[in-house]
């Protein structure tokens, strides 16, 4: 303002000097050039008018220029004012007087519900708007800056809005001083940073939670960048390296463990990054903190940024020493068990082979001497009958009877041992046809015993069953019934076939097939029930009912192998009923 005054004064002075000089000089020149007074007066008037005209033009030009410049400035100011007024920024200036009265505030103060005039006119003191908890600090800081600088500073404090809410503002302030360093003005821009503060608080809380998560996990957790430089780790991991996270971050494995192990870690990092997915490996780790060793399962996962670009590797290691030990123990136990089973199986197989060799010998070697006895006794009978008396001939007959009995025993024993060794073959069997065939085989025996067979069966039945096992069981029961049913009343053998369908409700109930063979002969005492199914057990004298004592044992064995069972019911004197039961 002063400079403008001085400038204007200078122009005015120059104008006065120039005008006076022009008037004096032009008057003298006129007197010198025009002698005639009336003409000189006329010219003088004309000169005066010309001067006035010239100065008027000059004045116009100057004033117009000044006004134009002012208009431009005002326009700029207006523009600036509009921008600021619409911006979230509040521009303010304070006088350096007690209480720092506000001497300027723009319209954007209205965002907090105040009119600039309230502050400008002093109806409202700015200090009153600052939060009571903040105001002392803010004032102390201002005093310090005014006294010692720096003159450029930022404060954050809470400000009360007209609606009574508190907003956080960031106040960027400059101090203007005169040549002597006295504070002339304090100016600043204020900005509402509540949202920023809130999101920052949220960010801090979320980071805190994440940190808590990572810190609380009992696993080792760490993060490395693509070059293997540690970015972060949790406290369990700190124990591995025996260093704090701050010391670990920025370094690589090579700074903490020996070269080979570090290379191994690095290789696994690379594998995970190349694979683009988790890579798992196991490793023995030694804790630098206390020298403890443990087996760890480490999962390395590539870390991607928001754009999907690879930025590093996340590592998580969990101790599996104990799990591995129990797994190992279990494995050893299983192995031992397997070995024991294998040994047992081998023993059993050896036993089975021995049994096979045994029955082979029985079949071959036991029969050969029998054949000799039979052959030579026959030859004796044929060629030397004349030399023997009646008793001698009876002896010969007895010898040959013994041979027949022995032969039967051997054959039954062979059948029994074969039943034990033979593999089961399950195939569809037409049961009615099988029964029919068996009955045909027994036709002569039935005739001889004077017995008839009454058959009671469903129209058809096919079973998936071991044909030979079933045949042997049924044949023996039929033979038994013929043998013991002889002379019974009625002279009948009843053969029934009952089918129990699988239960649709009861799970695992497969259904049953029951063969029932009933005779009306001598029957058996039920107190011997269990004995009759054991090998070599006989309830009758051989001369009454010839047999080897193997037949029912064979039936029982066959049923057992087919997953079925056999039992008998009887009343002595009125026949016996035998049941064969097979799962369907």
């Amino acid at each position, binding site marked *: 303002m002063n400079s403008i005054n001085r400038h204007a004064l200078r122009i005015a002075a120059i104008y006065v000097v120039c005008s006076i000089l022009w008037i004096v000089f032009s008057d003298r020149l006129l007197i010198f050039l025009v002698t005639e007074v009336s003409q000189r007066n006329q010219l003088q008037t004309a000169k005066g008018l010309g001067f006035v005209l010239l100065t008027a033009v000059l004045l116009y030009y100057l004033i117009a220029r000044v006004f134009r410049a002012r208009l431009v400035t005002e326009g700029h100011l207006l523009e600036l004012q509009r921008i600021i007024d619409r911006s979230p920024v509040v521009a303010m200036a304070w006088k350096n007087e007690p209480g720092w009265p506000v001497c300027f505030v723009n319209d954007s103060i209205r965002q907090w519900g105040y009119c600039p005039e309230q502050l400008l006119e002093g109806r409202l003191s700015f200090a009153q708007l600052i939060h009571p908890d903040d105001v002392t600090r803010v004032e102390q800081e201002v005093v310090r800056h005014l006294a010692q600088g720096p003159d450029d500073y930022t404060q954050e404090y809470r400000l009360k809005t007209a609606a009574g809410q508190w907003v956080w503002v960031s106040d960027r302030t400059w101090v203007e001083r005169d040549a002597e360093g006295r504070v002339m003005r304090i100016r600043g821009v204020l900005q509402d940073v509540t949202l920023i503060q809130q999101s920052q608080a949220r960010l801090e809380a979320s980071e805190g939670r994440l940190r808590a998560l990572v810190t609380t996990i009992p696993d080792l957790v760490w993060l490395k960048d693509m070059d293997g430089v540690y970015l972060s780790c949790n406290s369990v991991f700190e124990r591995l390296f025996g260093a704090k996270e701050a010391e670990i971050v920025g370094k690589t494995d090579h700074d903490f463990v020996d070269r080979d192990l570090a290379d191994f870690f690095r290789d696994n990092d690379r594998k995970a990054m190349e694979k683009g997915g988790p890579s798992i490996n196991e490793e023995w780790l030694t804790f630098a903190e206390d020298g403890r060793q443990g087996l760890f399962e480490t999962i390395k996962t590539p870390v991607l940024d928001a754009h999907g670009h690879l930025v590093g590797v996340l590592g998580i290691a969990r101790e599996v020493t104990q799990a591995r030990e129990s797994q190992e123990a279990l494995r050893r136990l299983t192995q031992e068990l397997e070995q024991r089973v294998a040994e047992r199986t081998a023993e059993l197989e050896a036993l089975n082979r021995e049994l096979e060799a045994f*029955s*082979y010998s029985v*079949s*071959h*070697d036991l*029969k*050969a*001497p*029998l*054949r*000799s006895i*039979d*052959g*030579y*006794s*026959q*030859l004796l009978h044929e060629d030397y009958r004349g030399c023997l008396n009646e008793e001698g001939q009876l002896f010969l007959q007895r010898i040959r009877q013994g*041979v*027949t009995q022995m*032969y039967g025993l051997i054959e039954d024993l*062979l059948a029994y041992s*074969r039943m034990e060794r033979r593999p089961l073959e399950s195939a569809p069997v037409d049961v009615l046809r099988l029964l029919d065939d068996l009955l045909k085989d027994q036709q002569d025996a039935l005739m001889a015993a004077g017995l008839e067979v009454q058959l009671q069966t469903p129209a058809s039945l096919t079973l998936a069953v071991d044909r030979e096992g079933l045949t042997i069981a049924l044949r023996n029961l039929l033979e038994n019934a013929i043998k013991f049913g002889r002379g019974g009343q009625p002279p009948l053998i009843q053969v029934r076939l009952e089918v129990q369908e699988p239960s649709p409700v009861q799970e695992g109930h497969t259904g049953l097939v029951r063969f029932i063979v009933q005779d009306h002969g001598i029957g058996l005492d039920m107190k011997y029930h269990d004995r009759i199914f054991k090998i070599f057990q006989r309830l009758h004298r051989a001369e009454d009912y010839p047999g080897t004592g193997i037949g029912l044992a064979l039936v029982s064995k066959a049923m057992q192998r087919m997953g079925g069972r056999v039992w008998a019911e009887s009343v002595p004197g009125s026949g016996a009923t035998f049941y064969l039961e097979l799962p369907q």
Partner: protein
Amino acid sequence: MTAFAPPILLVEDNPMDLDLTLRAFQRRHLTNPVVTARDGEEALAMMPLWEAGEPMPAVILLDLKMPRVDGLEVLRQLKAHPRFCKIPVVVLTSSGEDGDIQKAYALGANSYIIKPVNFERFLAVAEQIELYWCVLNQLPE
């Protein structure tokens, strides 16, 4: 039958079985001579003799369980021979084991007969063997 009737080769280790078999053939007035071998080794030892021109048997009756070389081995070697494979081999044994029957047929046995314990039936078997293999059966030249 002529005097040149080809022999029957009986391979049997059990002396009584051997004796009884021979007697059975005798009883049936068998015309073919019976040559015996007491084990597999002896039976195999006949192969060079046949090569040398001795008459080949019309049929071989072969026991299975014998010391040194058993019947199955004799069967294997016979059936592997280009000429002797044509000699009919009837396994005549006490064993009715399914495994033995399977093995014998797998090796090319022509028949498998279980020796009956009963002598009467044994006689009938001897008769039928002779009738079938020495009279009825026709061999390639």
